[in-house]
């Protein structure tokens, strides 16, 4: 299993970070009264939406990681999990869409949307 490189930032920027829980319920509306709800499957797929601040060198490391290790984002990898109760906790994720890069002062903001796999 591929892990997030240790020489890259280990936490998302707080600014603009978002986490979406999995939508894993089936809702059946009734003719009268509240809808009936049940769980669709054992585990659903959540989402992280955030950015990392990287230097020029870190950006090059990240792009090599994305192309070579993740085969252009098609493979899963482990990343330090935000809100992890256990220190050093990781999450199994994969890219939902290609990452984006924009300038941030002298550094770069690398934005990404990741699927959290069960």
């Amino acid at each position, binding site marked *: 299993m591929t892990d997030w490189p240790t020489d890259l930032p280990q936490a998302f920027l707080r600014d603009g970070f978002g986490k979406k829980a999995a939508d894993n319920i089936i809702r059946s509306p009734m003719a009268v009264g509240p809808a*009936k709800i*049940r769980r669709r*499957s*054992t585990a659903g797929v959540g989402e992280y939406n955030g950015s990392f601040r990287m230097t020029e060198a870190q950006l090059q490391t990240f792009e090599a990681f994305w192309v070579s290790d993740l085969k252009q984002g098609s493979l*899963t990898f482990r990343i330090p999990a935000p809100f992890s109760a256990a220190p050093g906790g990781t999450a*199994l994720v994969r890219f939902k869409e290609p990452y984006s890069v924009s300038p941030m002062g002298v550094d770069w903001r690398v934005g990404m949307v990741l699927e959290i796999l069960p």
Partner: protein
Amino acid sequence: MRTLSDAFKKALFAQESDEVVICLLTVDHEELTTPFYFSSDNTSRISENPLMYATVSRGREYYFVPFDFILPEDKSDVPPKIMLTVENIDRQIVPLLRSFTTPPSILVEIVLKSAPSIVEMDFPEMQMANATIVDSNIQIELVCDALLTEPFPGGTFTPGAFPGLF
């Protein structure tokens, strides 16, 4: 009348339920050395690379394949028919389906996530009758031996076969 467990009946009638209904498929064919086992639920992760999920029932792993299923109607004069819709197929499934010269037999079982080894419902071994590829999914029709459509009696006295009688 079908006998369901108390847990299943409780989940069916509850306003909200955390129970997950899982469909297990056992696909067998004379050309297969071992049957294929599939599950409709990603109960537990068994491998990270490649990424695979499975449901363990009665000591056997049923591999997760995302599919929807429609159970047959409970009518006495209609042969049971189950519809499976497999999502996100790739090019490997179509040649596999077309390679069968005789239909595979498929055992369909319904279990709950809380007790995956207890079979709540099972259907007699059905045969794959039809497979329709629509956009990015494939719809598979499972039917029982259509005994209701077999003519009875097997032979009849007709002028063509027994002209002396007419």
